[in-house]
């Protein structure tokens, strides 16, 4: 019971902490503007290339659809990767890290709890951006298996939060985690099949793609949108879950290791 209380406290306080610098109207603005503009940028690039190459209209529509769906799903990373990594940064900047480490509370619920409301926020981002994809870029969900798609989105949000915790745990060792937050949010656009399929990457880089839960999640969601059932996409979801859990585990090891070193050296903010 105590662990559950710690888990929820950690979830609520970590989420509320971001509003020390982000007021709610601006949070809404970012929620609606950031994902839409990112999606629009890549859709316009894809459209320009497709038109310039003289592709037939159906192929141009397919390109736009591919990019819009990928970017709608990638917006989950803004909450589950960028925001979660920045929790570590704010713990350092706001001076709350010593208090966090001084508490006798169990570390695992603190560590996992801090990402949990960002998971819900990430799902909301994906939902909003799917609305943009449907109404502004003509994505048709008519054939989609909505149950399979919903589960793919939920699992992607959870596992990407696991990835955020991994990098967040690693970030304890850096003076400014914001740098890592930026790097690991944006490189997903290259590696995870957001704007182009993974097999279009140079061969040596392709294995890197499978280290990110988002790659599996996007594949699962694309197949669900094409009408495949939950059972049919379950291999993707299974692999995604494994990668997500391993990420959380490694992130937790980083966190505990940082705590040990910080206690030993007394350098909490910049070990």
């Amino acid at each position, binding site marked *: 019971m105590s662990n559950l209380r710690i888990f929820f406290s950690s979830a609520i306080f970590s989420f509320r902490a971001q509003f020390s*610098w*982000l*007021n709610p109207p*601006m949070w809404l*603005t*970012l929620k609606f*503007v*950031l994902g839409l*503009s*990112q999606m*629009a*940028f*890549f859709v*316009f*690039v*894809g*459209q*320009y*290339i497709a038109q*310039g*190459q003289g592709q037939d209209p159906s192929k141009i529509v397919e390109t736009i659809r591919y990019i819009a769906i990928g970017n709608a799903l990638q917006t989950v990373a803004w909450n589950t990767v960028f925001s979660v990594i920045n929790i570590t940064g704010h713990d350092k900047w706001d001076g709350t890290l010593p208090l966090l480490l001084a508490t006798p509370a169990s570390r695992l619920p603190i560590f996992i709890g801090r990402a949990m409301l960002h998971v819900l926020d990430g799902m909301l981002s994906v939902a909003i951006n799917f609305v943009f994809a449907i109404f502004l870029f003509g994505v048709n969900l008519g054939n989609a298996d909505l149950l399979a798609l919903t589960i793919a989105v939920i699992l992607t949000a959870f596992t990407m939060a696991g990835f955020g915790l991994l990098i967040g745990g690693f970030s304890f060792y850096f*003076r*400014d985690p*914001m*740098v890592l937050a*930026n*790097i690991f949010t*944006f*490189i997903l*656009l*290259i590696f995870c099949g*957001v*704007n*182009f399929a993974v097999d*279009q*990457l*140079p061969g040596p880089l392709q294995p890197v793609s499978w280290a990110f839960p988002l790659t599996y999640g996007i594949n699962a969601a694309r197949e669900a949108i094409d009408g495949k059932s939950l059972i049919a996409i379950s291999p993707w979801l299974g692999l995604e879950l494994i990668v997500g859990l391993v990420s959380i585990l490694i992130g937790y090891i980083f966190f505990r290791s940082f705590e040990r070193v910080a206690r030993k050296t007394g350098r909490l903010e910049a070990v």
Partner: protein
Amino acid sequence: MLILDLSKEAHKMPPQTLRVVYSAFRMAMLHWVADPQWVIPNVIAPFVFTVVALTLFRTDPTGQFALYAVLGGGMMGMWGNTLYSSGFAIEFEKWQGTLENVLAAPSNLMHVIAGRSVSNALLGLTNMVAILLIAAFGFRVSLGVANPILFAVSLVLTLLSVSALGLIFASAFVLSRSAQVFTNGLEFPIYIISGSMFPVFVLGPFEPVSYVLGPKWGIDAIREAATYGNVSIDFWKNIGIMLLITAVYIAIATVLFKFVEKKARRDGTLVEA
């Protein structure tokens, strides 16, 4: 005799405005050298966007798209860094505890921010260098500049235009507590509207919005100079419009900065805001 010596020294010194701009430019550069991690977030997004575009463009047999990607990547780097530095121009002074000194100094606040804005636009160009290397070695794209002199001229003028727009943002952001949020929220829309990675006709009914952005005309001129040895009249037209718009930016920024400075001195709340 002493008076004569001082007047000699005065002749050697640049006009006060340029001296202030240069000093702010130099200080900003020194800050980046001392703490380079701050530049990383601002070039990450343009860099990644350009790599994605290059990957999408790699099937293009003409190489025309690659030019858009590389030059657009450089432009986005300038944008990202200038927007960021504008958003944080005053915030940064607060963190350093130097805002009171800057405001109390007889130098014009706008000249201080201008120097910083130019330095940040220049740093944003590092993205273009990174993209050139990636394009050349990673994507085997051969990129020649047909008219290097006009390319350099248009690049420098575009950099000044981006910096001038940064001044407007800086003055507007000073009045808001959410400069950081505006900075993040405006970054991608500006990449789209400026047509950095694709011609603005792709925007359809939103195309006219891009006409008020000086750098839109600048990137058109840069592309023309990179593609043609003998540039057409369009090159000069683009440069002319960009200079005109830049002059308007500077006029607007001057008015806004006077307002901000007056408000800051009168209310005395800028440091706490």
